[in-house]
C-alpha cells in the first residue's frame, strides 16, 4: 500500500506543493475521482508555517499538511452514503457523484483535511492524484510529490520506505486513525543564546552550558562556539529548565526557562574577572 513520507529537515517552504495541487484540481474536472475545487480557500495539501524564536535566534519551520489517507478513517465510518472508499493502494477517495453534501466527514476529520465546496455542495479533499496514477503511465506519484524540489515529499510503497518509517512520527498521533503520512523532523523547541564578556566586549568561546529539566532532572550540554553561541535543540514542549553557564571557574545561572515557545535568551553578559 502507498504512503506519503515527509522530511521536514529539507522542506524549504516554497509552497509549490500547495500550488501544484491547485494547478491540478482548480478548474479541472476529474470525476469520478474529484470535481474542481474552488479557485481559493481549499488546501488539499497546505503549508503551515511557524516562526520560532526571537531576534537574533529565529528559524522558520514549514509543515505540509494533507489528508492522511487513514487506515482507520473516521470519514469512511461516518459517511452514511457510501461515498468514501479506501482503495487497494491505500488512497481514500470521496466520490463526488455519491456525496450528498451532508458535511459529516468534514466535521469529523481530526486532521482538518476535508473541505466543503458550497457551490457544488460536496465534500472534497486530497485524492493522491489517483486520476493521474490510474490513467497516465507517466505519473507514478501525485503532483505535490512530483514537483518537490528538495525531495522533502515522497510517495510510494510502504515496504520500500522501512528505513524512513522507523524514525518517523505522525502529525496527530492522538487521533489514532492509522495515518499513511509519515513525518520526520517535526519541529521541536530550541533554546539558544550568545555569551559575552561585558568588560572586554568579547564573546566567550568554549563555555560549558548545562540545561537541566527542573522536574525530571534530564540534562543537556552544549559548548559556546566561536560566535559565543550555544544551542539546545529538539527539546520537548512545556518543560522548565535551569541553565548554567561555566567558563574558567566563573558561572552564571538562569532559571525558569520554559519551552512553551522557542527561546532566544539574547546576548548574555558574564564577567570573567
Amino acid at each position, binding site marked *: 500500500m502507498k504512503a506519503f513520507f515527509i522530511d521536514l529537515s*529539507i522542506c*524549504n*517552504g*516554497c*509552497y*509549490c506543493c*500547495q*500550488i*501544484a495541487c*491547485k*494547478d*491540478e484540481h*482548480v478548474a*479541472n474536472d*476529474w470525476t*469520478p*475521482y474529484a470535481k474542481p475545487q474552488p*479557485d*481559493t480557500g481549499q488546501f488539499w495539501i497546505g*503549508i503551515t*508555517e511557524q*516562526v520560532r*524564536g*526571537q*531576534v*537574533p*535566534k*529565529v*528559524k*522558520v519551520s514549514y509543515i505540509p499538511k494533507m489528508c492522511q489517507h487513514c487506515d482507520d478513517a473516521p470519514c469512511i465510518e461516518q459517511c452514511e452514503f457510501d461515498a468514501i472508499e479506501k482503495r487497494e493502494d491505500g488512497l481514500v477517495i470521496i466520490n463526488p457523484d455519491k456525496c450528498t453534501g451532508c458535511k459529516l466527514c468534514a466535521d469529523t476529520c481530526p486532521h482538518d483535511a476535508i473541505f466543503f465546496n458550497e457551490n457544488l455542495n460536496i465534500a472534497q479533499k486530497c485524492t493522491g492524484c489517483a*486520476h*493521474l496514477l*490510474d*490513467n*497516465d503511465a507517466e*505519473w507514478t506519484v501525485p*503532483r505535490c510529490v*512530483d*514537483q518537490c*524540489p*528538495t525531495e522533502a515529499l515522497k510517495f510510494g510503497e510502504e515496504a520500500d520506505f522501512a528505513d524512513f518509517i522507523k524514525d518517523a512520527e505522525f502529525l496527530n498521533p492522538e487521533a489514532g486513525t492509522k495515518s499513511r503520512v509519515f513525518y520526520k523532523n517535526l519541529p521541536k523547541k530550541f533554546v539558544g543564546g*550568545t555569551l*559575552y*564578556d561585558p568588560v572586554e*566586549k*568579547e*564573546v566567550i568561546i568554549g563555555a560549558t552550558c548545562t540545561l537541566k529539566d527542573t522536574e525530571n532532572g534530564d540534562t543537556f550540554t552544549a559548548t559556546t562556539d*566561536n*560566535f*559565543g*553561541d550555544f544551542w539546545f535543540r529538539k527539546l520537548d514542549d512545556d518543560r522548565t529548565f535551569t541553565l548554567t553557564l561555566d567558563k574558567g571557574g566563573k558561572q552564571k545561572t538562569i532559571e525558569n526557562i520554559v519551552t512553551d515557545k522557542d527561546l532566544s535568551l539574547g*546576548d548574555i553578559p558574564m564577567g570573567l574577572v
Partner: protein
Amino acid sequence: MEPIKTKDKTVLRSLGLGGYFGGGAEGMVDVKDGKIVRVRPMQYGWKYDKKDVRQWSMTRNGKTISPSWKSLPGPFSLAYKKRVYSPNRIKYPLKRVDWDPNGDRNTQNRGKSKYVRISWDEASKIVGDEIKRVHKEYGHNAVLLQGDGHGECKTINTPHGHAGVLLDNLGGFTLQVRNPDSWEGWYWGAKHVWGQGAQGIMYPAANIVKDTTEHADMVLFWGCDPETTPWGFTGQFASRLCYFWTEAEIKQIYICPDLNYGAAIHADKWIPVLPNTDAALQLAIIYMWIKEDAYDKEYVATHTVGMDKIEAYVMGQEDGVPKTPAWASKKCGVPEWTIKALAREFSDKITSIAHYFGGGMIRGAFAHEPARLECVLLGMQGLGGPGVHQHQLTYFGMPRAEGLGGTFFWNPEIEERLSIPVFSSVTAWQDQVIPKTLIQHAINRDGPITFSGTGAQNALVADQFNEYTFPIAKEKGGCDIHMIWTDTPCRITCWNYGHETELAMQSSQIEFIVAQHPWLENDCLYADVILPANTFMEVDDILTNIRQGTQQPNIMIADKAIEPIGESMSDFEIVVEIGKQFDMEEALTDGKTIADMQKKVWEYMGGEKLVTWEQLLEKKYWIYNTAEDWEEDTPGLRNFYEDPEKFPLGTPTGKLEFYSESLEKAFPDDMERPPIPKWIEKSENHDERMSSHRAKMFPMLLMSNHGRWRVHAQCDDITWTREAPTCKILGYDGYKYEPVWMHPSEAESRGIKDGDIVKIFNERGIVLAGAYVTERIRPGVVSIDHGARHDPLKTGEIERGGAINTISPGPITSKNCVGNVVQGYLIDVQRVTGQEMDQWRKDNPEAFAREYHPDAGLIFNAWVVGGEK
C-alpha cells in the same frame, strides 16, 4: 471506470522570468481541449536516457551533489496558468476615454481615467500617425523608448525592444537606458577595484561553486537570499546547494536586516545588520585584521594598491576616527563582540561571500562603498585562492557544458533580427539617451541634464568617466521628449521615487504614451493607447536554457501551447503591425518565418555540432553534456591569485585597486565615492541615516528585497500565491495589502497589531500595507518587497497597492552614479485609523470604486469601460 484523458499534448517552456535569452526554470505544459491543464517541472528523462547524458558532481566531506533529473521551478512558474488566464489580461487594444489626438489630450488624467476598446486598425493608425506627427513637429528624438529588462523568456518574440528596431529604422529615438538594477554597488564600485567583471560582480567566475564547495569552510550570505531571487531565473537549485553545504559542514552566516527566506532555514547564524550600514561593519572588520595582523600581507603587497591609504583611514590617522567595532556598532546595530567574532572567523576560516543581486547592501545610497569594501575584505584574505570567491550564487560558476562557448545570457553574435531588440535593454545604442533613474527630470527639466556614464548594462568601466547631456545638441537632433513607447513597463513600482514618475507622466509635454503589455497593470495605467501583448504560452519559440545557474543546460523547441487570448499579439507582431503604417513589414521580419528563426537560433548555438535539426524537431529538446574536462577550468580569479603579473586584472594598474587613481582624477571633489571606499554618513543627495534630523519624524529604516512571490513586478495577481501568509494580508476592508514586516516591539509602541492596515510614509508620500508583526526583522527596520502592483489612491501621493518604490529616494546612487536607491531610507509606520480611511474614501471616491476582488486584486473591469462584456 471510463479511462480519463489527462492531456492532449505536452509542450516545453522556460518558465523563468528573467527575460532576454538564456531561458531557465524549465517546465512542461500539458494542454487539453485547447486549454492549459497543468504546468509542471520538466522531466529531463522525457525523451533521453540519463545514462546518455554526461552530468557533473561535487563532493565535500563524503557528501555529494549532482543535478536533479528534473527541473525545479518556483511557485509563480508552476502557477503560470493563472497569468495566462488572468482576469487582468488585456484582450484587445484600448484607448483612454478622454485622450483625443485631434482635440484634448487631458494628460492630467493619466492614471485616473478609464479605457475603452478600439480596433487594431484604429490603434495602429493612431500610433503611426502620432509617430509621424511627433517626428515632423519635434524630431526623431522626441520619441522615447523605454528599454527595459526582465519579463518572459522568449528568443524570437522577446519583449522590451522590438519597437527600437522600428524606430531606429525610422531615423532613431531617445533611449531610456535601464540602469542595471540590483547591481548598483558592483557596477559603480567594484568595477573600479577589480575591473569590468560581469556588471561589476567578480568575473571570471568559472568553477567557483566547485571550488567553494571543496575548499571553503564558511560562506557569508551578505544580503543573499538563495531561497527567493533564483526562483525567477533558474528555479530552486540554489536551495539544494545550501542543504548540501550544510550536510558537508560548510558554515552559512547570514548578514541581513531581515531573516530572509534563506536565513530562515539554512543560517548557522543570523547577524541582523541595519540596512545599508554594511560599510561600517566592513571597516570594523578591516580594523580588527590590521590590529590583530590577521590578513594576507604578502598577497596584499603583490596583488593590490592603496592598502596604505586604507590603513590610514581605518586606523584613524586620516580623520581622527578609528573605525573600531565600538564605532561601527553604533552605526550598523551589530554588537561589538559579534563584530570582533565575525572578523576572526572570517580570517581564520577559508571564506567566500555569496550574493544574489539583492539584500540590504547593494541597492542603497552610496552602494558603491560597501561593494568596494567587500573587494578589500576579499583581497585582504587572498581573493582567488582556494575557497575565496565572490559569488552571484549559482548564477555564475556552475560546471561548463560541452559545446557551449559561454553562459552569457545573451550572445552578441546572434543575428540582428534577434539581437537588436535586446540592444535597448543592454546597450546605450542611440545618440540621445537618458538613464531610467532620471526620466522624471528629463520631462520636468529646468535646464540640460548632465550625467556621468549611461549606466547601460554592457557599458565598459571607461564609460563612467564620460559626461553626457540631455538633450544632446540641437544640431545633432537633440530635443525634448514628447512621446513615450513602453514595452512591459514597471517603473513606478520598481524604480526610484515612483510618485514623482506618476506626476511626470501626467505632464502635458508628453503628448502621447503607448504601452504594450499582456496585463493591465502598473505603468500601463498611464498610457493613452494600450496594445495587447500575448504570453509565451501563445507563441512558438525556441529557448536556450543556458542561463547562468541552469543545472542541466538544454535547448528546447517551445511549441505554442494555446491560441492567443483575445486579440493579443506577440511583442514582435505588435511592432510589425505598427510597422505596416510605415511600409516596414518586410524590413522588420526580414522575410523570415518563426520556423526559419528557430533554425537560425540552433545554428548560432553551433547546433550542428551538438544535435541534428531533425532530432531537435522530433524530440523537442536536447540536453548538453557536461564538458569532460570541466573540473580543470581555472576557478574564479585563480590565475590572478597565482601570478598577478602574468594575469593582471582589467584595471589601470592590473591590481586590485583599493585606491583608484582614475576615480581621483576624474572626480576629485566627489565626497560620496572617494578614491578609497569610506563610510558616508550623508551627502547633498542622501540624508537617510538614523543620525539624520529627519529621523525625528521618520525613525525607522526601510528594507526592501526582491519579491518572494514575484519577479520584480511580475505575477502579483496570481490568486494561489496570494494565499501565502507573507504574500498578501487581508485587511478588515476586504483588500489584500502588501505585507510590511515589523518587529513586535515596534508594533507595540505604535499600537499596531498583526493584520492591521498601516501606512508607511516619509515626505515623499504614503504607501498602505498590511502589518506582518514578526521576529523575522530586527527592531528599527521594516521590510516590504518592491514590485507590488500599483493602485493609486491619490496619484503622486498615496499608494494602496503596496508599491513601496513610490516613496523611495529620488536622487541617484551618488552624484556621478546613475543607479537607483530603493532601500535603506527613513520612514515611519503608523496604523491607519478608521477616520483617516473614511476621509480618503470621501476625497478619492473613484479610487475606492474600482472593481476589485481580493483573490487577484484589481481586475480588468476596474479600468475599462464596458470591460465586463
